[in-house]
């Protein structure tokens, strides 16, 4: 195994931007500081603390509702209307409820959570998300014992989302988690990033983020959360069951038919920086490995 050396050339541009960012949140939100980042795992040094620039996070996106190009979501989402917005939580719950995005954001205070996003295509970013644990929201509706899985449904609005005019995927976008995965404290309802409201191209007004799974597991612009008894079929599973499993945990040992999952490119690092090794569970094994202790992760990919 090759040990990848952390690039010595910290891109100055990014560093400067970060300094500026620290200053800007220092003004408005004194409670936030980069040194109090939750879940920042120290053993995980490779590049975990090098934040991806705001520009890269908000212009390089996979969000097929707005087009399949990486720049399309930024270009095509600026007019997207996220007000009013409601999210329904239903299914195997005692108190089904519909809340507006504003209500959710004010009911559950957001904190900064720096997590790495690992895309199934073999690239990663480190993003200072703003959000709170999904479990807090789910506890509000009293989940029944019969609920074994959670299904997330994203918005369907082809008038505003031109990508949905084509059957690229089975719209609306659907994703799912096992109930214990959904209840895990690092499974996050995202409300913003870099201390600002969530940009449209990143899934405004509310999205899910599951740090130890490939990016597509984290549904954007959610309108429905449904607790169900049986394993839901996600849009990607429907499109290609052989390539996209239900679990889709980041796993360097299970390779995808198109992309090697052993290594990844770090976004924003430039042309001459090497790939870095991908870590099991994207580096969150300490937190989540016990969820899968009796499972064969090669079979349940």
């Amino acid at each position, binding site marked *: 195994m090759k040990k990848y050396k952390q690039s010595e050339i910290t891109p100055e541009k990014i560093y400067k931007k970060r300094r500026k960012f620290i200053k800007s949140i220092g003004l408005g939100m004194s409670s936030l500081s980069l040194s109090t980042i939750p879940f920042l795992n120290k053993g995980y040094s490779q590049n975990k603390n090098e934040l991806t620039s705001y520009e890269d996070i908000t*212009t*390089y996106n996979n969000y097929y509702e707005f087009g399949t190009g990486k720049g399309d979501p930024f270009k095509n989402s600026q007019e997207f209307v996220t007000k009013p917005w409601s999210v329904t939580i239903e299914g195997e719950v005692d108190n089904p409820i519909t809340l507006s995005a504003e209500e959710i954001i004010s009911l559950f205070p957001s904190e900064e959570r720096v997590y790495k996003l690992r895309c199934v295509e073999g690239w990663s970013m480190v993003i200072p998300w703003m959000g709170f644990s999904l479990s807090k929201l789910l506890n509000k509706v009293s989940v029944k014992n019969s609920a074994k899985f959670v299904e997330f449904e994203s918005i369907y609005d082809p008038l505003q989302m031109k990508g949905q005019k084509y059957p690229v995927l089975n719209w609306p976008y659907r994703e799912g988690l096992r109930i214990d995965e959904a209840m895990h404290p690092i499974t996050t309802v995202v409300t913003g990033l870099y201390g600002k409201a969530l940009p449209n191209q990143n899934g405004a007004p509310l999205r899910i983020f599951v740090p130890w799974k490939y990016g597509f597991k984290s549904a954007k612009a959610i309108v429905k959360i449904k607790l169900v008894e049986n394993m839901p079929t996600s849009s990607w599973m429907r499109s290609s069951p052989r390539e996209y499993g239900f679990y889709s945990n980041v796993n360097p040992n299970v390779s995808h*038919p198109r992309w*090697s999952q052993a290594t990844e*490119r770090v976004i924003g690092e430039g042309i001459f920086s*090497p790939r870095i090794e991908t870590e099991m569970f994207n580096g969150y094994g300490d937190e989540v490995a016990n969820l899968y202790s009796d499972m064969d992760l090669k079979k349940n990919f």
Partner: protein
Amino acid sequence: MQKYIKIPIFFLSLLPILIIFYQIIFNQLGPEPVKEITHVTGNWTLRFIIITLAMTPLQKFTKLNFWISYRRMFGLFVFFYASSHMMTYVGIDYRFDWSSISDDIVKKKFIFAGFLAWLLLVPLALTSSKRMIRLLRDKWKKLHKLIYIISLLGIIHYLWLVKVVTVEPLIYLIIIVILLMLRVKMKFN
């Protein structure tokens, strides 16, 4: 006269790679520069395959002979862009990490198709000189029919690598199928 056209066309064909160099130097390739170079060179390989394949039918339809005299140059540009494309992957992306690369070639069918296409281009590039044409005669013609297979492998490579089918590979596919059908038609006429 033709010499005077050939030189500008030669430089025009170099333009895509010059633009890439410019973008590397001035850091304009966006957040994922390596992938961007892979995509640009891959697309130009396919475009030059199409241009090369179009020369013979154009000669037949326009009854002008000069098209053919560009065919060899365009064919060599196919090899040039295919090799830049492959070197981006082998040298820049995987840094000559041969174990990962060979693993990819056997495990990933889209890499396998691309690699095979590049491999088949090698004998064509090696036998592209006038001397070789004279030396091999009929065999040369047969050998260079490989470009049909290469074009199909190139498009299969593209179709296999996209996550969901988008318009671009389909457009390329349609153009290549039309060009190949023209060949079949010309043969039977």
